């Protein structure tokens, strides 16, 4: 059994490291927070963290197939604008509205996937272009910020369960259980990992490459729209903000890397990316509790990011042959 253990550890090294780093940071944060750990502090932190965590999950699915989705942020903004228009009214209308938002998100992801698969364009340029289209659609829905969302739904998602547990964490857990775990354990999920490791080898082995990519991109769009819905619940309004979209896209890549997911594809897990996202948010909060001048915060955040990604070069120490550098 020791063999199994060491294999399991090696497979999940990135996820475990991200988890440990997050726990350490969050402990320091709570220990130094003037109010200590109470439900409100936890809920505020969770709401910010979960938003990025969902976008990071969306990014992970595409990155695993060795693609990249530069339109996740824009899909989120589009979902935000759509949700602020249609997730209102009677409970039935609200439910229909939620379904509509999720449908549009999945559709956006599916379009990305179809262009990458059948158009044979590189994911990076495809999603740059579709991102512009999705942002245009968001702007058409909401030329000026505004709108509203069903207050019951918003309070339920951003509030607390039983007065203690942040509801957003429950949402995140539900997404892991309903979306990520079934995907990871299915044949399609394995195919997505195979495509990311070596597309040629996967093709030669008869792995359903197209189906795997299509599912990965579609689920990614779906998750991004859930993030947009959640953003609407936090802000109670919709805004077609290009800055918001590109910030979340870039942060999602950072979170994915911090979470131990390889940008070359084929290794890592969405759970790692979730902890990467939570860690990234906690860095910002840490600077706040340690009374770092607000002006210096972006610089510290940048330096921490540089340090964190530089850890990726530790693997160089294990390389025996210089030629292995140039795989």
């Amino acid at each position, binding site marked *: 059994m020791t063999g199994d253990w060491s294999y399991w550890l090696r497979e999940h090294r990135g996820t475990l490291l991200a988890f440990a780093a997050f726990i350490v940071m969050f402990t320091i944060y709570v220990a130094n927070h003037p109010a200590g750990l109470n439900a409100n502090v936890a809920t505020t932190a969770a709401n910010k963290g979960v938003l990025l965590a969902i976008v990071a999950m969306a990014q992970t699915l595409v990155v695993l197939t060795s693609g990249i989705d530069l339109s996740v942020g824009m899909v989120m903004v589009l979902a935000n604008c759509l949700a602020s228009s249609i997730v209102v009214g009677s409970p039935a209308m609200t439910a229909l509205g939620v379904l509509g938002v999720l449908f549009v998100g999945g559709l956006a992801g599916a379009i990305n996937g179809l262009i990458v698969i059948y158009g044979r364009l590189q994911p990076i*340029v495809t999603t740059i*272009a579709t991102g512009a289209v999705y942002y245009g659609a968001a702007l058409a829905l909401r030329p000026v910020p505004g709108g509203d969302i069903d207050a019951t739904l918003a309070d339920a998602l951003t509030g607390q369960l039983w007065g203690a547990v942040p509801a957003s964490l429950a949402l995140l857990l539900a997404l892991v259980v309903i979306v990520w775990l079934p995907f990871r354990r299915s044949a399609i999920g394995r195919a997505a990992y195979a495509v990311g490791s070596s597309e040629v080898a996967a093709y030669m082995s008869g792995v359903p490459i197209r189906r795997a990519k299509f599912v990965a991109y579609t689920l990614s769009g779906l998750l991004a729209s859930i993030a947009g819905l959640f953003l609407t619940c936090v802000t109670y309004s919709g805004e077609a903000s290009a800055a918001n979209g590109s910030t979340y896209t870039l942060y999602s890549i950072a979170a994915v890397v911090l979470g131990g997911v390889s940008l070359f594809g084929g290794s890592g897990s969405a759970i790692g990316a979730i902890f990467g996202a939570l860690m990234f948010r906690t860095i910002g909060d840490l600077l706040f509790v340690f009374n770092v001048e607000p002006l210096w915060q972006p610089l510290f955040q940048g330096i921490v*990011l540089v340090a964190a990604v530089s850890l990726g070069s530790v693997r160089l120490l294990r390389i025996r042959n210089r030629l292995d550098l140039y795989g």
Partner: protein
Amino acid sequence: MGDAPLPANSSGNTFGSVAGRVRRRIDPAIASAFGCIMVVLFVGSLYSTSFLSPEYLLQQLKVASFLGVIATGMMIVILLGQIDLSVPWVVAVGGMMATAATGWGPIGQALAIPVGVGCGVALGLVNGAGVAFLRLPSMVVTLAVNAVAQGLMVVHTGGFSPQDSSSPAMRFLATGHTLLGIPNALLVWTVVGIVAVFLLTRTTFGRTVYAIGNRERAAYLSGARTRLVVMAAFALAGGLSAFGGVLLAGYASKAAQAMGDPYLLPAIAAVVLGGTSILGGRGSYLGTVAGVILITLLQSILSVMQMEEFGRHVTYGVVILAMLLIYGRGRPHSE
């Protein structure tokens, strides 16, 4: 101008007919990009004939120069098979440091442009070191350097747009006219372009850039100093982005917080529309010129036609996708 070295076994290298040679010299991607420029101009001229006036076209070339300078650096990095996502804040660093230097007095005014470009080169070197020596994916390194550059500028400016204005030299380069009413910015882009073509096609550096983009391992085994070349390419890209920022600050006579944001995606799009492979190793500068002009014209004509802003974004995205689907597709597995 700037073709990638042709494979030795391509047909007609003995007595190949002139027609065949001409056909080989013309990259279908570049031809399509120039064709699209014609189509855009034609559609524009149906709306208003002023789109074909020399004044309008010269004005567009002037505006395109800023994107052109930035896209030149992006192209060199893409030829390596890497990408530079630090463009937004390196552009801002270039503009802000140049205007800040102007505020130091007469010596600062003289040094404004070198200071701005030098800061960009320094950031580019950090990018290059991360990619060449730490072997990190360029997407991550340049993203992190972008965050650091943003942090540095927030500290430097106190979070506001800086009050210093640009130096006379910067304004001269960005807005002046010298020869026959040709904008100086266009002359600057021409010089940058000629130097880039020379570097890419006539020097060891350029050959090595293409070689690394095709297969880094082979380039290394052939004795190319791959790490130095990667460092130099990223430093060049950083310097050119910052120089773009210097010109933009001269154009607007001020630097601003988000001045570089609208240049990252158009720069990548321009390079790719010009037929440069995003995977590296293939592409020519003429294509990038076509891509830059095409994107600038597209943006300008859509806004002159007073299309709603959302329509502009949608059209912009759809046109890029459509063009790439026509000529930018990869090979299917069965080939």
